[in-house]
């Protein structure tokens, strides 16, 4: 893990957590809760499971507070834990199948659980007055979700960290425990697949 030369505010907060300051942990939680849950939502495509996994990530961070050393950027460390948990979750074939089932249920609006119910409703929040347009949007979003879901787990994680978390190649490499060139290769192949699957959406502006 490479040393962090620039001051990382999160790392400083974490050092205070190490000294027993729970308020600093609360601040870290408030700051990173949404990005982390959203990353995991897109990764495992199951709202309930993503919150469970996010809780586990924060629990692990809290547990590790006494031995914390700021050897890497806090977010890199956090996404490393998150990727590790998500990849393990996805490796489980049972969960993989369940995710596919839930996706199907989500598409027809029959998903269960409060957070899960929110997902299609929120994604359909569109200013368009037409139901038809909303349906088209939902179909396209489903296509995007399916395209991401079709990617191998590591490629998926790399794309999500690159696109949504705007992480550097080096950070993604640390989070996925591979080299920078391997990350570039993962991203190259992933975007190639996505281009093939999603290029036709270029003309359909206004998703």
């Amino acid at each position, binding site marked *: 893990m490479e040393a962090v030369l620039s001051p990382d505010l999160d790392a400083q907060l974490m050092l205070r957590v190490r000294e027993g300051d729970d308020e600093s942990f609360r601040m870290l*939680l*408030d700051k990173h809760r949404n990005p982390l849950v959203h990353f995991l939502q897109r990764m495992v495509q199951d709202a309930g499971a993503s919150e469970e996994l996010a809780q586990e990530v924060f629990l692990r961070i809290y547990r590790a507070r006494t031995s914390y050393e700021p050897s890497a950027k806090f977010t890199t460390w956090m996404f490393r834990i998150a990727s590790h948990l998500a990849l393990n979750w996805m490796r489980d074939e049972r969960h993989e199948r369940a995710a596919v089932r839930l996706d199907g249920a989500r598409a027809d609006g029959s998903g269960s659980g*409060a957070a899960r119910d929110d997902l299609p409703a929120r994604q359909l929040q569109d200013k368009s007055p037409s139901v038809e347009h909303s349906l088209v949007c939902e179909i396209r*979003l489903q296509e*995007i*979700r399916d395209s991401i879901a079709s990617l191998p787990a590591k490629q998926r994680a790399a794309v999500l960290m690159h696109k949504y978390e705007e992480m550097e190649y080096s950070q993604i490499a640390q989070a996925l425990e591979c080299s920078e060139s391997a990350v570039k290769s993962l991203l190259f192949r992933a975007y190639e697949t996505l281009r093939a699957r999603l*290029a036709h*959406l*270029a003309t359909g502006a206004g*998703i």
Partner: protein
Amino acid sequence: MKTNCPTPNCPTEDILLDYISGRLGRAQAAQFDAHADHCARCAALRTSQAAVWQSLDAWKPAPVSEGFNRELWRRIDAEEHQSSWTRELAAALQFSFWKRLAPLAVAMALIVTAFMFDHTGKQPGKLQPYSPAAIVVTASEADQLNRALDDIQLLDEVDATAAAPAQPSSSVM
């Protein structure tokens, strides 16, 4: 990593990714644009990658549950509570604790050992195993009893003789 662009001096894939994600510097972005304007392959890549980027932008995540923090703190508190008594137990089981008790334990062990040696074979209430020696002891006890009874009988006879009136010496035969 090079793109599969047929034109010489085509930008690498990571330059394309940086261009699309807006991480490329202004000068480099202009350079890429100038190249793509004359290279159909790179222009197509730019268009399709932009489409991917826009599509991904449209994917809004669901809001996080309101009770997320509360649930997390509940789990942390539960873990802390659990770990507090496990810490106490671990502290009680620490080596230093046992080190202090070691002399006492050794003394106790010595006392018990000495007691065991002292009382070996003298356990009251415990049945003795069957052996010929036990029979000998029983026989000698019976002889002793017989002899004692004979002695008592003899004494009784002596007493009776002493109490009786004197007889002529001729009757003593």
